[in-house]
């Protein structure tokens, strides 16, 4: 008979859960990971693939730096190739006043390790001659890059399994409960799992589980809009993204060495949560074509050969929920990465493993605490 008991049960097999399983095993903790569908099927597998630090909330850069150091240890770290290339990332803008904002970001002490360089005018167009004349300036991050999201979570899960983690796919959690000092997890196929500690890494579904412990959060689901062109000679190694406050102007692209150009940004779609499918809205693609022609006028007669979407969880303040529960001992969260979790993945796994194993972490994650959504004492007294 299989023992359904472990030091830690992880619910949700995206990149966060898979990476956490891997790092927990490295720290010698026994792990069972429960995934309702397939590893890395939702937000983790369908995102753009940006391994980008610049532009993040400054209070997240410490975590992003820790993750970047792990990305740099690939493929040796997990003995698998995620097609990571530290190709450089360029964040461009269409307005002069936005350059000042990029400069302020680059000057922030938190961003020191990013080695950002601001380009503008002739120097910008000399360094990136393919950018359209509307582009006024940009911030270049030489160490950022991109990787293949389809491969990442499954590779971490395989690496975790090789270290002895138990990975259960097609296993849907029906109920989680605190029982005595530990947790009891019931799956829809009637199995019972138990663990001393529980980590919820259920992405867009994380809120359903946190609510079972009396910690609801304002999470909404969005479908990213992605497209890819046919392959053309590899000429655009730098990831380029537009910095703007106008949603439809948001566009980013990366070319992979085999030649295809991957494009994302613009509108988001509302996923069908009943069938767990998200679609690309035709208007998103048409907008991306417009925006790409503006950003790279020479893009010319390339063809879009495929588009895709997925299901991402966004918190109301666009920051994740990460850290210990505010109410239940032994319960931890890492979900709702609001469209910017891919780069953080290895770092989140490492930090959560450290936190779960030692009770604390050397990396600041306080801004992501679930307690920020807890009703204040004043609100609670009003309610009662």
């Amino acid at each position, binding site marked *: 008979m299989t023992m359904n008991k472990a030091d830690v049960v992880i619910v949700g097999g995206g990149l966060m859960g898979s990476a956490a399983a891997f790092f927990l095993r490295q720290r010698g903790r026994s792990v069972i990971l429960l995934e309702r569908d*397939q590893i890395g099927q939702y937000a983790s597998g369908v995102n753009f693939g940006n391994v980008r630090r610049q532009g993040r909330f400054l209070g997240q850069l410490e975590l992003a730096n820790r993750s970047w150091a792990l990305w740099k240890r690939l493929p040796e770290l997990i003995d698998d190739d995620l097609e990571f290339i530290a190709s450089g990332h360029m964040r461009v803008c269409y307005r002069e006043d936005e350059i000042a904002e990029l400069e302020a970001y680059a000057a922030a002490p938190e961003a020191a390790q990013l080695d950002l360089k601001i380009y503008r005018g002739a120097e910008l167009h000399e360094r990136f001659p393919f950018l359209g004349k509307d582009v006024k300036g940009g911030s270049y991050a030489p160490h950022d890059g991109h990787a293949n999201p389809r491969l990442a979570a499954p590779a971490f899960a395989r690496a975790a399994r090789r270290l002895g983690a138990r990975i259960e796919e097609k296993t849907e959690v029906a109920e989680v409960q605190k029982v005595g000092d530990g947790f009891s997890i019931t799956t829809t196929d009637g199995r019972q799992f138990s663990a001393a500690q529980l980590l919820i890494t259920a992405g867009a579904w994380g809120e359903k589980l946190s609510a079972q412990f009396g910690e609801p959060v304002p999470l909404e689901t969005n479908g990213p809009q992605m497209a890819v062109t046919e392959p053309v000679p590899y000429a655009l190694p730098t990831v380029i993204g537009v910095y703007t406050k106008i949603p439809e102007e948001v566009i980013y692209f990366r070319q992979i060495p085999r030649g295809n150009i991957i494009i994302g940004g613009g509108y988001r779609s509302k996923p069908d949560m009943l069938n767990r499918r998200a679609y690309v809205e*035709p208007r998103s693609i048409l907008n991306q*074509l417009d925006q790409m022609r503006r950003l790279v006028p020479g893009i010319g007669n390339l063809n*879009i050969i*495929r588009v895709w979407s997925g299901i991402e969880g966004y918190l109301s303040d666009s920051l994740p929920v990460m850290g210990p529960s505010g109410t239940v001992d032994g319960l931890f969260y890492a979900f709702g990465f609001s469209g910017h979790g891919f780069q953080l993945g290895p770092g989140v796994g490492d930090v959560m493993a450290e936190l779960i194993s030692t009770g604390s972490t050397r990396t600041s994650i306080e801004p992501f605490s679930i307690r920020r959504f807890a009703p204040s004492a004043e609100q609670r007294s009003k309610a009662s």
Partner: protein
Amino acid sequence: MATARVVIVGAGPAGVRCAQTLVAAGFRPILIDENRRDGGQIYRRQPQGFTRSYATLYGTEADKARDLHESFEHLRAQIDYRPDTLVWNLTPGQLCCVSQGEHSTVDYDALILCTGATDRLMPIKGWQLGGTYSLGGAQIALKAQAVSIGHRVVFMGSGPLLYLVASQYLKAGANVAAVLDTSPLGKRIKALPKLMARPRLLFTGMKLLAQLRQAKVPVHLGISPLQVLGEADSGVSGVQVQTARGETLTVACDAVALGYHLRPETQLADLAGCLLRFDEASSQWLLATDDAGRTSVSGIYAAGDGAKIRGADAAECAGRLAALALLQDLQQPVDAAQVAEQHRALKLMDEFRVGLAQAFPWPAEQAKALPDDAIVCRCEMISAGELRRTVSEKGACEVNRAKAFSRVGMGRCQGRYCAQAGAEVIAAAAGIHVQEVGRQRGQAPVKPLSMLTREVTP
């Protein structure tokens, strides 16, 4: 209510007969077609200015081609015909179209998909070399542009199209080096009772074979393809097969046309959420429809080879029947005798379809025998060995998972030409039935969409 906005996609035999039936009932359907001219594939019309006769172009099917084209000419003023227009995506009630670089939307209340079929292909080592075509591609080159795909052409695969295209090439004066059929004679004899459902068609097929033999074209039955020979720079120089007697046969040629009958074009229906079902007879996924062509999505119908591979005659019946089903659903009066007549005709064609699948079976076993270094996905240049490793090393026994890991089906053709063979490779590697590995989900755009596409401002 003749005010319902009815859109037909595809102007082949199914689409034209569907439009004709709706016009007779007082409707003015929109007929969208990707081609510049009506007729679809089998009755493809030559470009303006070409002057080959019907007999030259369509042989034994000349009268049917003429009849369909004339019917279409009569309809033109009574329908909203939009040629050279690709429906690249859809949302409930709205089609996304692109024509000559301009994007527009078309609203619909009812949609009839007559999207036809393309070649069903099984990889062979070397099939990525220049000079390798599908049978359908070879036929289009001849029919549309009056050109041969090579100076010395081998036709290889199985199915009625193998003999039809080979004899069309022969008649056009091309040098047909050989016809190499994977199906052994025994299978055909066994299938005879079912094929007798349509004696005239059976006779036509036998006549084609006789013509090829008379012209001293080597015809080999029961062969196993080994490889397409040649170099990357110079392209195809020959093909190598194992004959039924176990000998290795090499035929020199500079072009080869391959194919194993047809597969349906289901992308639009798939994007619309229509269910597909696994068809045992042909061992592939087909649209789930009722006898009249209603899909699982209300208001969406399908007819012709895009729904079920039964050929052009059946497509005409199915096109009429889908239109009649729509009229019934719209509470319009429908001639019961006409409905019964289409059903009767289709019943025979269904039996014949099963007979064809028996006589010229899909060679699933070839996928298992495919050498590791043979390319499966030509768009992305992924080999059988790479695909098998995603099964053995990464545990991907489902086709969409295997696609995510291996890229098979991720390229320009979006799996239209490699996904079925890829599924067989995965099934063989995983030791499970091909139905269990599933099918690749459709993703927009239906065909590549130019980045120069612009929205038309109304």
